[in-house]
């Protein structure tokens, strides 16, 4: 009995790990997904800028994009697992992300602290506040990029 239990458990573990391996993204896939995420974020930022500088802003569109930014500001804290730096393939993510984790987390937190203010300004339909919060949030992006993102090409 214990022997067959062992076998059952053993095969269960095996199957589980096979599934885990099949579903876990490779470092390259993580890099690619990260790139896509940031491109979405860039588009959302552009949309917010376009709408907030338009004569009559579309607040529904503003809110949709501010929510994308707000969610990404939290999600991005999961976008940099170990092993997805330059060692895994072409990326602008610098090794400092993993060698200075405290600094990197602080930089990411600046983004997740500021993004909700942008969403709040959008919900309040205050265009000037949106513009100011956009600048603040963009500043958080730049702050992190200055240290943790390498140059293009």
């Amino acid at each position, binding site marked *: 009995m214990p022997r067959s239990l062992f076998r059952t458990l053993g095969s269960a573990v095996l199957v589980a790990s096979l599934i885990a391996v099949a579903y876990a993204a490779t470092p390259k896939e993580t890099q690619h997904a990260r790139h896509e995420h*940031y*491109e979405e974020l860039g588009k959302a930022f*552009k949309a917010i800028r376009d709408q907030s*500088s338009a004569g009559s802003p579309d607040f529904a569109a503003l809110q949709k994009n501010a929510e994308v930014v707000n969610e990404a500001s939290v999600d991005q804290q999961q976008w940099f697992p170990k092993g997805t730096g330059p060692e895994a393939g072409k990326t602008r993510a610098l090794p400092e992300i993993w060698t200075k984790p405290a600094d990197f987390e602080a930089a990411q937190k600046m983004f997740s602290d500021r993004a909700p203010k942008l969403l709040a300004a959008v919900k309040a339909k205050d265009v000037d506040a949106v513009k100011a919060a956009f600048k603040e949030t963009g500043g958080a992006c730049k702050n992190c990029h200055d240290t943790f993102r390498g140059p293009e090409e």
Partner: protein
Amino acid sequence: MTDTVPPVSPARLPARVRVWDVPTRLVHWLVVALVAFSWWTAETGRMEWHRWSGYTLLGVVIFRIYWGLAGSSTARFGQFVHGPRVISSYLKGGWTAVPGHNPLGALSVIALLALLVTQATFGLFAVDVDGIESGPLSTYVSFETGRAAASWHEDIFDVLSALILLHVVAVLYYVLFRKEALIAAMLHGERAYSEPQPPPMQSASVVRLLLGVVLATALTWWVARAFQL
């Protein structure tokens, strides 16, 4: 202004002729300064200043185009832009000097102006990779188009740099080997010509100048505001 030059054997001195008016010289050196400043602000990520530098440069170029149509004689395209026949006769030495650009230098002026307009246009539509920094007209295009514009904006700067280098090398050739004081002329506006003395520059009126400044400023302001009044 009164002539205070003492009368020393005028026959032996080459005549000093007015070649460039103040607006043309100012435009030239403003372009030099603004291209350098635009490059520096882009390299160091000072994008707010980069936009202002670009707007000013666009305004200066718009003014120069206006001045090429309505300005002083030596600034006018109709006066100095020639076809291939005149250019080749100039290269063979069969061209009588008149104050202003020579037929070959004219190509440099036209190419640089065209490239500056193109460069400014792509900058107006450009979007950075984060969607945070952008030109004012990018609001009319998609993120992808804005990124393409930014990429062209970078590539055209290389072409512009090459053309500027060619321009500087050509000017230095004239100064060093042909003893034509082109740089000095672009600074103080005059050149010495030996006999026969060419016809002097015809100045445009101050009213025309002011009209051009107002026109260029208004047009640039309108573009920078993404055509919203």
